[in-house]
C-alpha cells in the first residue's frame, strides 16, 4: 500500500503543479457527467410521472362491443340481440358482472356525443350515463355535490373552462332543429383526470342512467363496461373468463387492458431517454479526448522525470500506475463535481421539461447520478491508458537525455 501511496503522491502533486490544465480537463468530465445524469433523470421523471398518471386506471379493464369501433356513435333504438350489434346488451353485461363481481367493481356506461347549448354558446360534448350509486367511488369533485335528482349532472373541468360553467349553470342537450332538447343543471365540477381509457371525463357531461336513456333512449344497450379490479394480478383470470363466456363462438366483445398501454408508453419514453443520453454521451467523448490530450502532455513534459524514476529502480508498472492514478483522480474529481452540479441542473431540467419534481428523489431517478459518475470515471481512466502505457515503455536512457 505504501508504494501505492508514494506513487499516488506523485500523481497528486503533478495535478497540483498543473492545476489549471487539470481543472480544465476535469471540467470536460463534469459537463459530460452533468449532461448524462440530468438527461437520464429527466427521462426517469417523465416515465415515473406518466406511469403514475396512467396507473390510476391501470386497474380498469374496459369491455366494448367487438368491431364497429368502440368510440360511441351507436345509433340508438336499433333493438335486436344480434351478434353484429355495436353495443353490449343487458344479457352480456349480466354475464360479465357474474364473472367479474368477485374480483372488483363492474359498471356499465352509456356514451353519446351531442350538441349542447349554454346560454348563447353552442358546442359538442360527450355525455356519459351510468349508475348514480357509482359516482362517489369513481369521481372526485372540486366543487359542488354529486347529482341527487335525475336532471342534474356533473361536468369535466375542461368543459367548464370552455363554456364558462359553474355550479348551478343550465345546459341544453340536443339540437333544437332536430327535435326536443333536455335541460340539465350542473351540480358538481370534476377534478381533472387526464387522458384515460375508461372514461374521458375532462370534456364530458356525466349524469345518471335514467337521465341518459331519457334523452337518447337505448336502455340496456351499453357502450362500454368497466371492471375496476381489486387486484391487478387478476387481470388475466378475468379476461380469460370473459373471453371464454362471450367470445367462444365468435367475438362479441373486446377487452382492453390498460397496463399494456402503459407498457408501450413507458417503453417509448425509455427509448427516448436512452437516445437523449447517447447524445449527452458525446460530450463525454469530447471530454475523453481532452483528458487524453492532457495526459499525453503530462507524459511528454515529464519524460525526463520518468527517466529518473526508471533509472533509480521504479518498475514499469509503477510508472504506469502513476499516470493511471493521475487520470483516475481527474475522473473522480470531475465525476464528484459533476454529481453535485447535476443534482442542481437535473432539478432545473426536470422542472422545465416534466413540470414537477415530485419524483426527483425517487431511486429510479437518482440512480442516474452514480451511473453517470461511473461512466465519466471509466472514460477518464480509459483515455489515460495509452499515455500511461507509453510513459512506462520509454527507454530510460532516452528519457534521461530529454530536456
Amino acid at each position, binding site marked *: 500500500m*505504501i*508504494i501505492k501511496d*508514494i506513487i499516488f*503522491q*506523485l500523481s497528486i*502533486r*503533478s495535478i497540483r*503543479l498543473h492545476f489549471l490544465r487539470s481543472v480544465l480537463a476535469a471540467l470536460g468530465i463534469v459537463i459530460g457527467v452533468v449532461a448524462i445524469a440530468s438527461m437520464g433523470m429527466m427521462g426517469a421523471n417523465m416515465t415515473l410521472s406518466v406511469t403514475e398518471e396512467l396507473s390510476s386506471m391501470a386497474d380498469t379493464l374496459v369491455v366494448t362491443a367487438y368491431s364497429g369501433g368502440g368510440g360511441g356513435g351507436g345509433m340508438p333504438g336499433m333493438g335486436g340481440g344480434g351478434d353484429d350489434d355495436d353495443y353490449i346488451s343487458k344479457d352480456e353485461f349480466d354475464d360479465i358482472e357474474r364473472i367479474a363481481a368477485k374480483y372488483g367493481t363492474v359498471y356499465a356506461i352509456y356514451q353519446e356525443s351531442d350538441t349542447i347549448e349554454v346560454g348563447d354558446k353552442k358546442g359538442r360534448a360527450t355525455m356519459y350515463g351510468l349508475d348514480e350509486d357509482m359516482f362517489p367511488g369513481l369521481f372526485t369533485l372540486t366543487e359542488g355535490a354529486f347529482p341527487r335528482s335525475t336532471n342534474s349532472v356533473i361536468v369535466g373541468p375542461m368543459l367548464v373552462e370552455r363554456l364558462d360553467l359553474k355550479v348551478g349553470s343550465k345546459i341544453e342537450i340536443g339540437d333544437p332543429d332536430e327535435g326536443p332538447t333536455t335541460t340539465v343543471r350542473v351540480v358538481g365540477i370534476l377534478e381533472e383526470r387526464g387522458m384515460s381509457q375508461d372514461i374521458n371525463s375532462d370534456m364530458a357531461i356525466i349524469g345518471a342512467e335514467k337521465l341518459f336513456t331519457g334523452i337518447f333512449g337505448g336502455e340496456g344497450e351499453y357502450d362500454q363496461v368497466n371492471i375496476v379490479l381489486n387486484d391487478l394480478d387478476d387481470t388475466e383470470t378475468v379476461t380469460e373468463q370473459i373471453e371464454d363466456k362471450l367470445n367462444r363462438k365468435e367475438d362479441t366483445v373486446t377487452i382492453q387492458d390498460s397496463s399494456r398501454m402503459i407498457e408501450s408508453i413507458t417503453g417509448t419514453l425509455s427509448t427516448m431517454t436512452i437516445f437523449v443520453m447517447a447524445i449527452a454521451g458525446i460530450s463525454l467523448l469530447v471530454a475523453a479526448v481532452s483528458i487524453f490530450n492532457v495526459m499525453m502532455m503530462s507524459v511528454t513534459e515529464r519524460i*525526463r*522525470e520518468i*527517466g*529518473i*524514476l*526508471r*533509472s*533509480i*529502480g*521504479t*518498475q*514499469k508498472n*509503477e510508472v504506469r500506475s502513476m499516470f493511471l492514478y493521475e487520470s483516475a483522480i481527474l475522473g473522480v474529481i470531475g465525476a464528484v463535481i459533476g454529481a453535485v452540479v447535476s443534482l442542481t441542473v437535473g432539478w432545473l431540467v426536470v422542472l422545465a421539461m416534466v413540470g414537477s419534481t415530485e419524483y426527483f428523489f425517487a431511486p429510479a431517478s437518482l440512480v442516474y447520478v452514480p451511473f453517470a459518475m461511473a461512466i465519466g470515471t471509466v472514460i477518464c481512466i480509459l483515455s489515460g491508458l495509452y499515455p500511461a502505457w507509453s510513459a512506462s515503455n520509454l527507454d*530510460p*536512457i532516452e528519457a*534521461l537525455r530529454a530536456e
Partner: protein
Amino acid sequence: MNSSPVVELADVTKVYHLPSGDVVALDGVSLSIEEGEFVAIMGPSGSGKSTLLNQIGSLDVPSSGDLFIDGKNIGEMGDRNLTEMRLNTIGYIFQKFNLIPLLTAFENVEYPYILKHRKKDESGRVNHILAMVGIDSDLSRHIPSELSGGQQQRVAIARALVNEPKILLCDEPTGNLDTKTGRHIMDILYGLNSEGRTLIMVTHDPAIAGYASRTINLVDGRVA
C-alpha cells in the same frame, strides 16, 4: 572481502542501429573492478564512456559479450530484474543531479527506500544520510528547485546511498558545479570510498580523476 570482482566485463560490445548505419559504441571491452575500488573512466566525447556507464548501471544490456554485476549476468535479465538491480545494487549519481522535481529533498532520498522496503523510513536512516552529506532537516524540506546545485548533488548522493548499494556510479558528478563546490562533492565521494564503497566515475576532468585509485581510458569504444 569478496574475492570475485563486483563488476566484470568480458568482450562486451554495444552496437546501436541507427538509420544512418550501425554505430559501435563499445567494441570488445573487457575489464574487472574489485570491491572497494575507486575507478575513473576517462576519454574524449564519443569514446563510449556513457555507454559503458549505462551498461554497468543496468540501464542497458550488451549487444554481445558478458557483463557480470555482483555475480549476475545482466545480459540475461529482463526489464523487471534490471530495474531491481538498479534499485538494490547500484547507486547512480548524475551530472544534472536528476532529483524528482515534485518531491522534497527528504522524499527524494526516501523514495528508493520505499520502493525497496515497501514502507516509509522509520529508522531515521534518511535523515542520517542527509546529515552525513551535509543537508540539515530544514533544507531537506525544500523541493530541488529551491536548492543550490551543490545542495542538489548532496541530496542526489544521499539518494544513491539510501539502499546500501554495492556500487556507486557517478556520471560527471561535478560537471554542473563550480570548482569549490565540486571539490566538496569529491571530498564526500572520496570519503565514501575510504569507507569501502566501490566507486565508478566517468569524467573528462583529470583533476577530478585524480581522486580515483585507477583510471581506465576509453578510445573509440576500446580500453586504451
